[in-house]
């Protein structure tokens, strides 16, 4: 009997674990190994250089830029997306009429939910190519076209969007335009998530609040929001990962995949640039390891901050 179990367990695990080791774990380990060499990627010549690549990281101007751009996205993407998603969920669930049964959701809320969720099912590539056309720097683009028509933008001097490296509030304009796309595509999903969480809060709590004379704003800020804490912090963690992964937008939309003039470089684009354009695989691996350490530290930090007692209904 025991023997049969062992055979069964090994049989079931062999393939998945084998595949995983081959295509996920082994490359990760190799990356750590390569990061200690000066391997160029196209030849077989590689020399052990110790921590030289890592020391080089600290003096690399591009890395410093990429780091701050990542931090920018890390702060702004979750912040704006969650704020907008919460606001939309608030309107959706509390914006309706008030009657004896309490405050209702807005009429047609399920239709809104269906529509807001659209961007979530589209691939980042579709979104990027689509926004490329929306962001065109001439009258053919959707935004420039509309603004020119109503006379807000001079046809001689259109908005250049992702070609604009000029800083706005200290951050290159191109990053703000990419941020807008991220928020546009993410808000609907998190709204649905928050909506579901709001609806799982028992009705009695609301009825009690209503009896105590709390208005809808009070109810939302004093009751709903604190009860949503768990969901919001989970959303924050996930959006953090998405923010680190803005590479699709940078890769497809910005000139020379991180431009103009390196104004939109992020970690991933710097890795790509060093590995496949400059042919410095070893160094690229060192950046990747640094990024991984950064990610893990961040995840640990977030878990630490957001961990709190769960509220059971």
């Amino acid at each position, binding site marked *: 009997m025991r023997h049969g179990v062992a055979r069964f367990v090994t049989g*079931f*695990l062999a393939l*998945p674990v084998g595949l995983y080791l081959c295509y996920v774990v082994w490359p990760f380990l190799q990356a750590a190994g390569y990061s200690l060499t000066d391997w160029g990627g196209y030849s077989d010549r590689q020399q052990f250089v110790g921590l030289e690549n890592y020391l080089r990281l600290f003096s690399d101007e591009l890395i410093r830029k990429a780091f701050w751009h990542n931090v920018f996205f890390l702060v702004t993407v979750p912040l704006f997306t969650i704020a907008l998603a919460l606001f939309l969920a608030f309107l959706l669930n509390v*914006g309706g009429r008030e009657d004896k049964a309490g405050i209702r959701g807005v009429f047609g809320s399920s239709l809104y939910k269906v529509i807001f969720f659209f961007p979530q099912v589209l691939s980042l590539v579709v979104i990027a190519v689509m926004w490329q056309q929306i962001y065109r720097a001439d009258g053919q683009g959707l935004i420039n076209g509309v603004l020119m028509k109503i006379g807000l933008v001079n046809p001689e001097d259109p908005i250049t969007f992702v070609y604009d490296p000029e800083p706005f509030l200290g951050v290159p304009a191109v990053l703000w335009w990419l941020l807008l796309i991220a928020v546009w595509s993410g808000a609907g999903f998190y709204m649905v998530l928050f909506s579901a969480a709001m609806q799982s809060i028992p009705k009695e709590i609301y009825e009690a609040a209503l009896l105590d004379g709390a208005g809808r704003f009070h109810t939302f800020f004093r009751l709903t929001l604190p009860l949503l804490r768990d969901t919001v912090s989970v*959303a924050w963690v996930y959006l953090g990962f998405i923010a680190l992964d803005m590479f699709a937008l940078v890769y497809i939309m910005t000139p020379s995949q991180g431009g103009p003039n390196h104004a939109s470089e992020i970690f991933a684009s710097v890795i790509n640039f060093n590995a496949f354009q400059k042919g410095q695989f070893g160094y690229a691996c060192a950046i990747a390891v640094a990024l991984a350490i950064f990610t893990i530290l961040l995840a640990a930090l977030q878990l630490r901050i957001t961990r709190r007692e769960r509220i059971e209904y």
Partner: protein
Amino acid sequence: MSTVTHTPGGPAGADQAPPSDRTPGRRAAAGGSRAGAKFFNGFSHLFLAVWAIMVVYPLLWVVMSALKTDAEVIRNPLSLFPETLQWGNFARAWTEGQIGSFFLNTVLVLTGSVFLTMLLGSMAAYVLARYDFPGNRLIYYMFLSGLTLPIYLAAVPLFKGVYNMGVTLPFLGPNSHLMLILVYVAWSLAFTVFFMHSFFRTLPTAIAEAALVDGASHSRLFFSVMLPMAKPGLISIGIFNVLGQWNQWYLPTLLMQSVAGEPKNQVISQGLIELSVNQGYRSDWSGLFAGVTMAMLPVLIVYIVFQRQVQSGLTAGVSK
């Protein structure tokens, strides 16, 4: 609200006020906020409608632009109503832009990869969740660690590894369907195992024991009892994997570059990137819009049909 505090007796006495005194006060409060409620209701509708337009309008604009002539795209870019519907754009993107073959490749790869992901993922998750053996935790954490590590870390060695593999085994080398299927499966396993693991843990043990007593083998127990019981979880993670792999662009861009002379085995997202570069050079805007439309509509239609399952499937993925 303010009317409540002005009820006779003042705030301090409000609690002791007899019900008959209180009722008019509450009535007034409700009456006072009714106008506010109406305004707020209107505002909600306005804001929600504006956001809905901001989501739908760009999508509609892309679809409608796909039905214009190139001249019309340039002359009249904003209009949503083409003069005559140019279905030919779709045919051009399908054949010349090769969206057709990219589509076929994607369907081919996904059929294999989603099936294998689900099968291998739930097998591994099941064993890890319900059997105790040395190394169980180690393997589980190994899968879990794949969730936090960024894919870019593995990019360079993965590329090199696949390239080297292709020298001896061409069907596992770059630009091969089978290789992409295996890579997709491997990279989807982490989340699938994580998700299904927590699902299998919640299933009752009594039924499993009964089946074993009745003489079912362990694998029989899995396939005919546990797997059917895990159906809701399988649907969620299945939707997640279909969407995730359909939308995957980084792995194919890295691994499916075809050298001149080789057949083009690219998948749709990758093809779309190529199309956006090529049609840009050729100023074939309507063809580009048609390509984007064709990549976008199937997913949107599937979503609209199965919206409840998709929404709950994807949100369950986050809240686990």
